[in-house]
């Protein structure tokens, strides 16, 4: 319990640092941050007026604190491009991203476990080689390219699945029926390759290590069946495997921009892409802040769950 408390207290300065970095983005950007709101022939008077409105005339620290306090109240400012609250834009996109990332993580985790156990159990056999090679493929493949190849194969050549979008009516309401799910399949499979490779590698190493432990020999000597031994192995692998899965979900959420761009999936990555190219700084800051905070929180939850599952872990 004290460990958890320490961990939470420790996360606070990190969150503050994350917020500071997100906020600083607008200041490390070259040129006038107002360039996207000002008309090219804007008068000096209008420019000063807007500078005051956005608070750019105040000292950096004062601007940051003001921004942070508003962010803590759930106000991330207004998108320059759409004139809608950033919070509303991000929360709509985040749901789409979470849906995609969760399905991808589940697919990746299932196959990662499968390959990992096969490889770890039959170390140095042909199956191990094949499973290990697949996991190397998973971490080496440029996923945006895999997305393109899948679109070419299943949409262009075979015509089985839609190439882009998140539903028949654009990005409208999502329901779990085939009409919508068929849009999810290609991006989710593309995305699942990354966690699959990493989960498979982790589990292979863990299983091989556990199987070489003396207690397994002991269990076998006591006459336990292979299935009973397997249960012991799973118990020992589970905490680490679950924490890897949790972290991968976070990575996928934050790193989905390339895949979302390929598939025009209306999630946070797509939003970020729009924010970057329209130089929409409030939207950029807000999206990155939400994603990074989500990632830090997810780390925290994963840690908490891991200590819960495996009481032996007493980290300092």
């Amino acid at each position: 319990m004290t460990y958890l408390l320490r961990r939470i207290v420790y996360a606070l300065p990190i969150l503050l640092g994350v917020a500071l970095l997100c906020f600083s983005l607008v200041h490390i950007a070259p040129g006038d941050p107002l360039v996207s709101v000002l008309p090219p022939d804007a008068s000096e008077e209008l420019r000063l007026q807007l500078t005051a409105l956005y608070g750019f005339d105040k000292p950096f620290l004062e601007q940051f604190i003001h921004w942070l306090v508003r962010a803590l109240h759930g106000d991330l400012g207004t998108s320059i491009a759409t004139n809608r609250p950033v919070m509303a834009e991000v929360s709509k996109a985040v749901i789409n991203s979470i849906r995609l990332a969760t399905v991808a993580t589940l697919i990746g985790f299932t196959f990662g476990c499968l390959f990992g156990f096969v490889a770890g159990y039959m170390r140095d056999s042909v199956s191990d080689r094949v499973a290990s090679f697949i996991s190397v493929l998973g971490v080496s493949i440029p996923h945006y390219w895999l997305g393109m190849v899948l679109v070419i194969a299943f949409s262009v050549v075979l015509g089985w699945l839609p190439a882009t979008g998140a539903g028949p009516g654009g990005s409208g309401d999502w329901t779990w029926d085939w009409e919508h799910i068929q849009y999810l399949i290609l991006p989710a499979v593309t995305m699942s390759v990354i966690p699959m490779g990493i989960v498979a590698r982790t589990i292979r190493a863990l299983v091989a290590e556990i199987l070489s432990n003396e207690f397994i020999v002991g269990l076998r000597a006591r006459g336990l069946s292979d299935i009973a031994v397997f249960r012991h192995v799973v118990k020992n692998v589970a905490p680490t495997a679950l924490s890897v899965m949790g972290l991968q979900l976070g990575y996928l959420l934050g790193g989905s921009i390339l895949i979302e761009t390929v598939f025009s999936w209306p999630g946070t990555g797509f939003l970020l892409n729009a924010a970057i190219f329209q130089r929409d700084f409030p939207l950029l800051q807000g999206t990155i802040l939400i994603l990074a905070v989500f990632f830090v929180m997810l780390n925290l939850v994963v840690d908490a769950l891991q200590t819960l599952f495996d009481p032996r872990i007493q980290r300092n």
Partner: protein
Amino acid sequence: MEMTLNKGVAALPVERSPGYWSTVGRRLLRNKLAMFAALILLALIVMAIFAPALMPADPYASSILKRLKPIGFEGYPLGTDELGRDMLSRLMLGGRLSLFMGITPVLLAFVIGSAIGIVAGYAGGWTNTVIMRLTDVLYAFPSVLLAIALSGTLGAGVGNALLSLTIVFIPQIVRVAESVTTQVRNREFVDAARASGASSLTIVRAHVLNNVLGPIFVYATSLISVSMILASGLSFLGLGVKPPEPEWGLMLNTLRTAIYTQPWVAALPGAMIFLTSISFNLLADGIRSAMEIKE
């Protein structure tokens, strides 16, 4: 390949038998898969370096009449792109920027991150706390998000993309360097050196560097594959190399609309990124298992 071995010889560890690195080298040479990957990388690097001499056509010469020709089209063995430029020549020349942009950030981060991490690990105390907490903040971002946030803010361009990727990899290397250095610092031979009056600088140079650079280097080699994918990914998003310069990620981006007319030509640049990235991964795996470093 050559470089790896030389690096290995330079980082001769003190506590192991003198033959350690030659053993590692021998074990690596016996690893067929790793050697195959090394050969592919060598071929790719040679191709990129000598591209101007080897290219069959001018990679910038466009032709409206010869747009998007298929693989095997007369005079264009790998077809043409959306502006009618020769794909083979562009892929060969594109390797230069792609390899450069994939490898450079890791090299820079290796140098900078090792220096910071060794200082943090060796100094300990407050210096360590400050450095590691700052590292934690950068580490709190998923690497793809951080790379895109930074280069998206700084604007498109090779320099900005390199800078962003270097910043992404530094905290990862700092963490490894710090943890290895902390381990080495508490070993008896460091105590012995200190007791016999060696200065901090001498200890770091003679004892710490020898023992930590190897593991950090192995970790860094495993990052090159990620870096290749990310660097080309930035160009794919329009945040890296600017047209008309050929680069695999950018070529993939401009050919995206061509997947309905010439799908296999459009997929070629990505296949090159894949080939490079998997070769780096297999080689890094080979080096790692030759050194018996557990994941």
